[in-house]
């Protein structure tokens, strides 16, 4: 029999960006909040030895222990799903701060088009442009409505940047100026200018200068050490929940974080949650935390999984297209890229920051005409300088042997002579891409694993080929002696790292029939449950998702306060 604790106003499941932001906003308003985090505590001091590529990037120091829990994957429903036994395609964060600790810090706002993709596509190209199986939807909220929340997130995190010439309207400039421009970035920007494109500095959560935010949190400027993605920041220069919102919540005295607390069920009765059941992973004890409001802010997979395991909400059925929990799983199509080899010039490729780069949106969203193209949307094109760490970065021109003297000579020669231009291709939703509970494989507690059914579609193949060709044009214009670029996307596979931008499964919308949550991230089927994160994206945009997750979290916090006051559905 599980032990039952005294009731709290709000319980938060997973203390990363979304959980941290909501904790900070609610505790500032006087609510009592308990944050349950399955992983351990993390702090800046932990990163004293962080410049260790093997430990953090290859052995996944900051990631979930897959021996306890993983996901299963199949390309389509005809195949038996099998567990992702080792890391590959994406990396699931763990511990206080979640994936907000090991991110790069690229903080793009989505385009206005992204939020109204179905209606705008139909309006411009007609209904026939969207294949029958493509289940993309408008979000139920527009860019303009979400803009104040983007602004809040950027102000809290101190985002460094300059206005995107092709982006949505901004109410305020970025709180800090853009980061420094490296010679490679300069070359990219100049080449893009000559091609009549619209380059701008990547909006960065790696601070360009010291910054104090409205909560009084001061952080130091980025040192360009080249260890962001997969690493924690030893300076606190990279905005993460542990150095921004969590201390603010702690300071109120209204926030209680319980680490090593793995939430396994949302308890509910008559369409209302009563609290959560969790396991103290250090003792194995099962504990019930009653609460007036339950906020689910774990990573995409566990948001969906927790709802399905708790039998809360209507599970998606791909055969009928009915139900919503698990629907519209999407990803990121990032393979459309080009790599350039420069014989006469070397670059400080070893130096960098996760969000150091120059981007352009000329091939993103509907910023270009798709009438003659067999795909919709596109992706941001960037030249980033994130720090080319030596185990994982050994670019050699196509045709080079994979090992032996030729590989060695060329990989050394090009270590500081190769540059790459990449894209974050948007990922559309399809009827047959979804998340559900695996019928066979279990986690360490005996609960079913999340099962992913996903593959790349014709849309993705066409789009990534198109984007790779554009990247290659820019690279040639930059003066590369040799350019290699993607010719063929191939099937989705789980082994190669691509992107930790998994989305969907608890999608947002304006109608309960076709969505799981409203635009405050409030569940239609249980009004005291808020499910916040990239799980609510109806499909994924051509950018990194964190800024939008942050904006949705600020909006959800506002919604929760309203709900606490008045109750009922907010929309």
């Amino acid at each position, binding site marked *: 029999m599980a032990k039952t604790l005294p009731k709290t106003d709000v319980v938060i499941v997973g203390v990363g960006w979304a959980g941290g932001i909501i904790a900070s906003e609610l505790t500032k308003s006087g609510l009592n909040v308990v944050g349950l985090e399955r992983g351990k505590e993390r702090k*800046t001091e932990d990163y*004293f*030895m962080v*410049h*260790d*590529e*093997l430990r953090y990037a*290859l*052995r*996944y120091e900051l990631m979930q222990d*897959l*021996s306890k829990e*993983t996901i299963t*994957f*199949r*390309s389509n429903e005809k*195949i*038996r799903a*099998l*567990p*992702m*036994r*080792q890391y590959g395609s994406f990396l699931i964060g763990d511990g206080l701060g979640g994936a907000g600790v090991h991110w790069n810090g690229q903080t793009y706002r989505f385009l206005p088009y992204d939020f109204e993709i179905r209606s705008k596509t139909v309006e411009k190209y007609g209904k026939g442009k969207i294949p029958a199986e493509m289940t993309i939807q408008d979000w139920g909220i527009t860019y303009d409505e979400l803009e104040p929340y983007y602004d809040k997130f950027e102000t809290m995190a101190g985002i460094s940047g300059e206005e995107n010439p092709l982006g949505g309207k901004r109410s305020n400039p970025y709180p800090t100026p853009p980061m*420094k*421009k*490296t*010679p490679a970035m300069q070359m990219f920007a100049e080449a893009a200018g000559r091609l009549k494109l619209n380059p701008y500095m990547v909006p960065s959560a790696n601070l360009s200068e010291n910054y104090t935010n409205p909560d009084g949190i001061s952080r130091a*400027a980025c*040192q*360009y*050490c*080249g260890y962001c993605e997969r690493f924690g920041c*030893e*300076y606190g220069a990279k905005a993460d929940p542990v150095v921004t919102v969590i201390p603010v919540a702690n300071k109120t005295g209204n926030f209680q974080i319980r680490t090593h607390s793995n939430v396994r069920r949302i308890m509910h009765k008559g369409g209302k949650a009563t609290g959560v059941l969790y396991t103290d992973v250090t003792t194995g004890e099962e504990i019930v935390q009653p609460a007036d409001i339950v906020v689910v802010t774990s990573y995409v997979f566990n948001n969906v999984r927790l709802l399905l395991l708790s039998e809360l909400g209507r599970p998606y059925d791909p055969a009928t297209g009915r139900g919503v929990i698990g629907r519209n799983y999407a990803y990121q199509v990032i393979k459309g890229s080009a790599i350039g080899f420069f014989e006469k*010039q*070397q670059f*400080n490729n*070893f*130096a*960098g920051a996760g969000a*150091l780069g120059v981007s352009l949106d000329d091939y993103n969203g509907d910023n270009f005409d798709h009438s003659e193209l067999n795909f919709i949307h596109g992706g941001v094109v960037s030249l980033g300088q994130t720090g080319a760490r*030596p*185990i994982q970065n*050994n670019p050699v021109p196509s045709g080079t042997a*994979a*090992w*032996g*003297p030729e*590989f*060695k*000579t060329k990989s*050394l020669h090009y*270590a*500081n002579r190769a540059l790459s231009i990449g894209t974050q291709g948007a990922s559309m939703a399809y009827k047959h891409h979804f998340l559900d509970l695996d019928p*066979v494989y279990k986690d360490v507690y005996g609960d079913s694993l999340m099962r992913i059914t996903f593959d790349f579609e014709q849309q993705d193949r066409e789009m990534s080929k198109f984007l790779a060709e554009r990247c290659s044009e820019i690279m040639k214009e930059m003066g590369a002696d040799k350019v290699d670029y993607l010719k063929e996307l191939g*099937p*989705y*596979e*789980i*082994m190669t790292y691509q992107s930790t931008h998994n989305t969907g499964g608890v999608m947002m919308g304006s109608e309960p029939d076709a969505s799981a949550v409203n635009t405050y991230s409030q569940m239609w089927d249980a009004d005291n449950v808020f499910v916040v994160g990239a799980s609510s994206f109806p499909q994924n945009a051509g950018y990194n998702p964190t800024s939008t997750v942050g904006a949705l979290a600020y909006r959800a916090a506002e919604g929760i306060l309203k709900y606490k006051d008045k109750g009922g559905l907010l929309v």
Partner: protein
Amino acid sequence: MDRSDKKKSPEQRAVDRSRRKFLVNTGYALGGIVVGGALGTLIGRKPAAKPAPANPREAGQAAPANYNRALMFFNQEQFRIVESATERIFPEDENNPGAKSLGVAFFIDHQLAGEWGFNGRDYMSPPFYTGEKEQGYQGRLKRREIFEIGLREMDNFSMTRYEKSFVELTGEQQDEVLKAFESDEVKLTTISAGGFFKMLRSGTLEGAYSDPLYGGNLDMNGWRMRGYPGNQMSFTAIIDKEFTEIEPASLQDHLVSH
């Protein structure tokens, strides 16, 4: 973490650094790392073994004993196969050291002895089924078991084709064996030959380029040969400049200076 050091000026840090170097060069004990006057009777495991090259920064002096150079997992025979095979994958040339003198085989040995060798953080629960190739590794064997089998099979294959063990083959013959594994021309019932080769190759790069604390990348020579400066606290001064060569620093340098 000692925050005070970050507040020091670059000059002060440089002074600290040269003081550290002085201590290292003169062989005074420093954080238990340099043992005064220790001589380099390093790797006495076989007569043919080359001693680890002395740190170029300490030219003219014997290298301190490197107690990391012993085996945690491989037997001698396995170690020699790994040393020869990784040297073919990442060979020494006139300008730069190869896998052997970087200590790659020691690195792989040490890794297999720990969590990575036991697949400690991988999902290893049954049932096991053969999957599609897009679904990744689905075997029940751990990395250390795959290495044991793979090394034995490399020797078996060498005996069958050349009537010599792998380490006795010429370099070209060793390449042929490695290629036969890489391309899955070798059919094994227990493991994938190509999958094993991939592990050998990725282990080689890890051993050449990970921080020397793991037993490879001896004296940071792996980093040095590609202009990688290792663990540096800041690149703010050069990030917007042309290519800059910087003498590498290790995590040990960082630890003893803080």
